[in-house]
């Protein structure tokens, strides 16, 4: 198997990420570092969708449901217990548990395709409506007032076991970056395990996977829950970066941009959607700092041009380009081999098809 070569790429990317983590605070401005934590949270969301959709073949339009639940679970838990470590675990747990229930409902009901997309989106929209409804004083979990439309404050991260020591923004950036890198390496590892390969096989052909005695419902549920847990983790860093969580995390546009990061980055890759998140966020933010053009006008044009010119997404297109060059090389060497064999066959006059 080609495991080792594939994984080398992963490690190279991880090392690049680590290098960025170490040098970014030296090179970038302080406010950029502070801002990056929230973008990293979004990147983890994109990664989770890249896993669930790109590898599991599950078009989860409402991946933001888990992202938002993670963010809310973190904010509420951290406000109540005063520390962030338990709250992070809680966020992951809540997102995963919710996905387990929803996934059971969906996959064991054999809902798939665009119908699945709409169910998950609808779930996110229900959470959007419900959280926006919580502006009354009666919506209080422990000490945390949910705050409806205005949302609720998300406490900063602190040292594990020492709730009094709040992390500096640089440290939060380090923690978020390392979480992103670990999540990325984890996903790369996961898709190469037996479990991951079966998920890919299911994406390719459900019937065949079933006939090979794999319970596809279980595998889909599994990757769905893992994706949700990751999205929940992303929600934590996002709300810590923003210092607040509002119902907007469940909105239609948030759900749509998550899908768009994956399309732009390329389905079937894990690094593509992460890079796309950073790039598109940078674009959006730049548009907000200028007064010449309407932000939507530019963003819309970029997306349209993109889908027409780079339909497969950035990373797969780059891989394709590299592949074409490699194939030319391979073709040349194969031709040489064939020529060799033909001369040998000519000598032996052996049977062909056998």
């Amino acid at each position, binding site marked *: 198997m080609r495991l080792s070569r594939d994984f080398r790429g992963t490690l190279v990317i991880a090392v690049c990420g680590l290098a960025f983590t170490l040098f970014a605070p030296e090179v970038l401005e302080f406010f950029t570092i502070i801002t990056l934590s929230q973008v990293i949270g979004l990147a983890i969301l994109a990664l989770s969708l890249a896993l669930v959709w790109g590898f599991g073949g599950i*078009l989860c339009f409402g991946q933001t449901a888990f992202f938002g639940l993670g963010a809310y679970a973190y904010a509420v838990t951290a406000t109540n217990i005063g520390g962030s470590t338990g709250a992070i675990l809680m966020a992951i747990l809540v997102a995963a548990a919710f996905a387990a229930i929803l996934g059971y*409902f*969906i996959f064991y*009901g*054999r*809902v*798939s395709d*665009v*119908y699945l997309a*709409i*169910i998950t*989106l*609808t*779930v996110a*929209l*229900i959470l959007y*409506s*419900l959280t*926006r*409804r919580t502006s009354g004083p009666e919506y209080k979990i422990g000490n945390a007032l949910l705050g409806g439309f205005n949302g609720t404050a998300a406490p900063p991260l602190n040292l594990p076991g020492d709730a009094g020591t709040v992390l500096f923004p640089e440290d939060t950036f380090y923690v978020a970056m390392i979480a992103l890198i670990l999540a990325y390496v984890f996903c790369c590892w996961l898709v190469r395990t037996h479990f991951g390969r079966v998920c890919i096989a299911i994406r390719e052909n459900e019937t065949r996977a079933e006939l090979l005695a794999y319970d596809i419902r279980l595998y889909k549920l599994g990757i769905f829950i893992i994706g949700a847990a990751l999205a929940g983790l992303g929600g934590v860093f996002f709300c810590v970066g923003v210092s607040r969580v509002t119902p907007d995390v469940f909105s*239609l*546009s948030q759900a*749509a941009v998550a*899908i*768009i990061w994956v*399309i*732009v980055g390329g*389905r079937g890759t894990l690094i593509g959607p992460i890079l796309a998140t950073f790039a598109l966020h940078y674009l959006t933010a730049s548009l907000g700092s200028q007064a010449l*053009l*309407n*932000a*939507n*006008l*530019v*963003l*819309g*044009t*970029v*997306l*349209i041009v*993109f*889908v*027409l010119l780079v*339909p497969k997404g950035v990373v797969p297109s780059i891989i394709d380009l590299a592949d074409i060059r490699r194939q030319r090389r391979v073709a040349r060497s194969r031709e040489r081999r064939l020529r060799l064999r033909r001369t040998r066959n000519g000598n032996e006059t052996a049977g062909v098809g056998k």
Partner: protein
Amino acid sequence: MDLVVSLALQILYGIANLALISLGLAIIFGMMRVINLAHGEFLMLGGYTVVIATNNGVNIWIAMLVLAPLVVGVIGVVVERLLIRWLYGRMIDTLLATWGLSLLIIGLVTSIFGASTATTISPPLGVITIGSYTSSGYEMFLIVVTVLLLVAVYATLKLTTLGLVARGTMQNAEMSSALGVSTSRIYMITFGLGAAVTGLAGGLLAPITGILPTIGAVYIAKAFITVISGGMAILAGTATASALLGGVNGIVAFLTGPTLGEVALLVTAIILLRLMPRGITGTLFRKSL
């Protein structure tokens, strides 16, 4: 008793409203498998057409019934030729492209007309009195128009070549494209038609809704959920899903409040899709249009 009649009419209007905002989307999705995320903006454009036209002295009926579908239909054809036709069979890519389109339209309208545009129109047709209750005559008119529109689309599907291809596509998308039906032209007309129906809906809603460049976002999710819940059959799907979801929404909203009304609509859609994983017409009324 007056309340019951009046409320029944109100719920009927809620259903018609849902069907009206969903029908154009159902045509485009059902026949072309294109997920049009710019659907809300098509509705908005219909409304804007009416506002701009009436501000310039055009009769409101002409603006609503003629100009709105015409303008948005032409925009639809242009969009199909320039953008959508490159993306057939790539359902997911249409998602990205039409999302981009929706942002572009919002951006364009905002850049041209500003964040809001003053209007002078108000709903024609006065008030209907039922006992001690009053209802809007215009809303009753919209119920009638919605029914007529459904009938017109039914006739188109049943009696024209376009309809024949449409039914073929609905039953077996691969087959009809494999048969090499001149899909290009048919698709262009279909998309234009879907856009025109959407524009008409947007125009008709103009006198009773707020019209802003960003208002499309309010409709898109609801229209989508209705269409998908309905399943593949354009008319039966839209009609049954609108009736179910609109009915639930109206009743719950009256009994409890608007938030729970919205939530009830969404929950109904989820339960429905769990019980009928291919939408209503994927399980019932399979042979219908």
